[in-house]
């Protein structure tokens, strides 16, 4: 099993976890974006419309574009999703600062909806952690 397999399995839960969080969907109601999220070993093309994940397929899809990408190492996601993450592994931007994640592309949608993405990608933490 690749290191990324449990991480990918957790990412696959994101749309369902988001559907259970009406408040987070409401906060993202003005957000429409195609982005690349996932681990450095396995990314996902994620389509978000009005705050909902309307499509999510494993990358790469040939010639599919994305606006911004946020990818972290499998070890970083595993640490990030712990119920009580250790210091330095607890926030998306702490991961980029320490070099365990990359943020690239046109990051304006990410910054405009920064708390949305922080909360979206932390949903597995409150759902029992990594699969």
């Amino acid at each position, binding site marked *: 099993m690749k290191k990324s397999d449990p991480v990918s399995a957790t990412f696959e839960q994101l749309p369902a976890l988001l559907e259970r969080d009406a408040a987070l969907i409401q906060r993202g109601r003005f957000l429409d974006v195609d982005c690349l999220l996932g681990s450095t070993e396995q990314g996902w093309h994620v389509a978000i419309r009005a705050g909902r994940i309307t499509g999510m397929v494993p990358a790469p899809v040939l010639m599919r574009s994305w606006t911004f990408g946020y990818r972290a190492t499998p070890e970083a996601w595993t640490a990030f999703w712990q119920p009580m993450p250790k210091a330095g592994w607890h926030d998306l931007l*702490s991961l980029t600062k320490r070099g365990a994640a990359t943020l690239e592309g046109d990051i304006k949608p990410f*910054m405009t909806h920064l708390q949305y993405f922080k909360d979206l990608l932390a949903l597995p933490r409150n759902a029992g952690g990594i699969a």
Partner: protein
Amino acid sequence: MTAYIEPMIGRYAHVDIDGTTHRIYFEEAGQGIPLVCLHTAGSDNRQWRYLLADEEFTRHYRIIAFDLPWHGKSNPPANWDGSEYQLTTKRYTQTIRAFCAALDLDKPVVMGCSIGGRIVLNLAIDHASEFRALIGLEAADFQAPWYDTAWLNRPDVHGGEVCAALVSGLVAPQSPPEARMETLWAYKQGGPGVFKGDLYFYRVDGDLRGRTAAIDTTTCPLYLLTGEYDFSCSPEDTVRTASGITGAEVTVMEALGHFPMSENPAQFRRYIAPVLETIKQKHSS
């Protein structure tokens, strides 16, 4: 039912800072050793409300927390023409000294957090004899940037939302949800460009590397306390800074982040109480 009324009172002081009168809002409680508290960048003195309401501390300390100009209830000065707000090391130092002088404080203790922690180091370098003790929370001579401050003030991104979202990760995950939200609320309320203007001091003008070795802690004791979850001013940044200052006392605070006094007041109390007790004992001996 009679309302519970908190002990602190709020007033305005007209303070001359470098030839311009500023109407400074401050809250205070208690009596004894003056303890002036400095809020973080982009926030205001509400961060200190738990300290101001602490009966044990206010028995021995006159705790005073003021809003920097442009922050909280301290408006910009009357002659402000709308130009971009920008805090410099010189202006920040002038403001603190002018406020302390205006209130006729006798050798106050100054405790600052984040930019307040950084400026405390500058007070220790240049004005140590004016203070009884200095306490830097989340303080370092320098720390590596982790985002572009241009995001904090642009017309196509909501300033309050992005300011709060950026710093939200600096709150430790153990902090009570209500204290976390209250801490972030102040960031959502800051004036446009004020957080960014404060960070001019933090990122550009206030690099104290190479200067802190001049601090004489026998003239004025220096205490540095940093939360383990602060990845902006990390514990390593503080420890590195303190390693070049003879006599500086360092504490890494568990289960706390960048806003210890407001994000988790009970946990912060465990760390600040011994410091305030030590200062009090030195004062009485």
